[in-house]
């Protein structure tokens, strides 16, 4: 067991090294502003949307004491729709040990209704928690740089990985597992 933990630890160092390189090529870190990624992100509480796999309530991100995965999307965004099948597969594979949520920064409850989001969600086979970040507070804390953006945070609420663009289920799962093992 110890040996396994050690190996997992090594694996996550490797994965982190890769993530670091990506982040550097990606910017804030390169400008020396994003160096605080080792600090825990202050939790933000968002309203969740009544949709398949989700419920009308609240969610606090990052979760307290377990890793969190966030997909930032918009119902207006074609690549976000394209990302949905891989998200569904990743969600099935990582299970409940990780808080897994999609978050839209649209003006939900204003110019976009909750049922618009729920309709889109149903149409693209969403089956996990979906929430609205109407003031973009969480998007600001997690530095969204385009849509979709995927962010994996460790159990201490520190950003382990963040990248915009469409990702495969394998990559998402690998990044989430690296955050779990951190």
């Amino acid at each position, binding site marked *: 067991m110890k040996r396994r933990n050690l190996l997992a630890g090594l694996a996550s160092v490797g994965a982190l090294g890769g993530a670091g390189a990506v982040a550097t090529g990606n*910017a804030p870190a390169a400008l020396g502003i994003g160096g605080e990624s080792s600090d825990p992100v202050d939790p933000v509480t968002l309203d969740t949307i009544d949709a398949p796999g989700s419920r009308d309530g609240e969610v606090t991100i990052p979760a307290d004491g377990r890793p969190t995965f966030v997909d930032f999307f918009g119902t207006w965004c074609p690549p976000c729709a394209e990302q949905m099948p891989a998200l569904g597969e990743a969600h099935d594979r990582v299970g409940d040990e990780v808080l897994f949520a999609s978050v839209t920064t649209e*003006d939900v409850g204003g110019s976009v209704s909750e049922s618009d989001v729920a309709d889109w969600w149903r149409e693209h086979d969403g089956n996990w928690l979906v929430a609205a970040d109407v003031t973009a*507070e969480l998007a*600001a804390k997690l530095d969204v*740089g*385009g849509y979709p953006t995927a962010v994996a945070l460790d159990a201490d609420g520190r950003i382990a990985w963040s990248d915009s663009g469409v990702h495969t289920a394998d990559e998402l799962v690998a990044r989430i597992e690296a955050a779990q093992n951190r």
Partner: protein
Amino acid sequence: MDRRTYLRSVVGATGVAASAATAGCLGALGSSGAEGTVLGPPEQDLSEASHPSYGDEMPNFTVPDPIAGEDVTVADYEGERAVLWTSFYTNCPDGVCPALILRLRRAQAAAAEGGYGDDLALLALTFDPERDTADVLREYAGQQGVDLDAGNWHFLRPESYEAGQSLLEEKFGLVIEKTDSQYENLEYQFPHYGLILLANKQGIVERAYPRGPQTDIESLVEDVERVVTA
């Protein structure tokens, strides 16, 4: 252009004077930034860039806001509002533009929360006026979470593509060109330089964020708050 060069040389001279003072006479002048600025110099010196940067005058221009149905003249904000500016277009295929708009929009939300929304103007200039009509921009505002009712957000739509192109090139040093699209559903796209500018109420640029889409959002919002509430 001469004036810009002049301002740059003043900035340069100030920098030299300040460091000389620090070295020679106990730093009596302190480590203040360029004349007329609230913020100190940025970590990264962008004074050689083609676009306006720290200490430069914010370019003045007049462009229609098609949603409000009025012209917006940047110089009119002097003494009234700080300005946070970017350029974009709604058909931007790769998420760069939503990332730029997100940064302005978060500054708008923070201003509303902090009670300084009336001291800030958020200006998002489209360089695709042919497609970005008032209706398209209004729908885009909803998608991007922009609050059009706050009275401080203006989408700016040049009279023509050419007018926007020359405005961006002459005033902002940004070269925009239509290119053949790699995307089947678009007739054309634009290579895009993701610049955000922050100018204070005196019309002096406080910060240029040349990698706007990747700029740390909370740092940017803090810069805005410091400049607006100074």
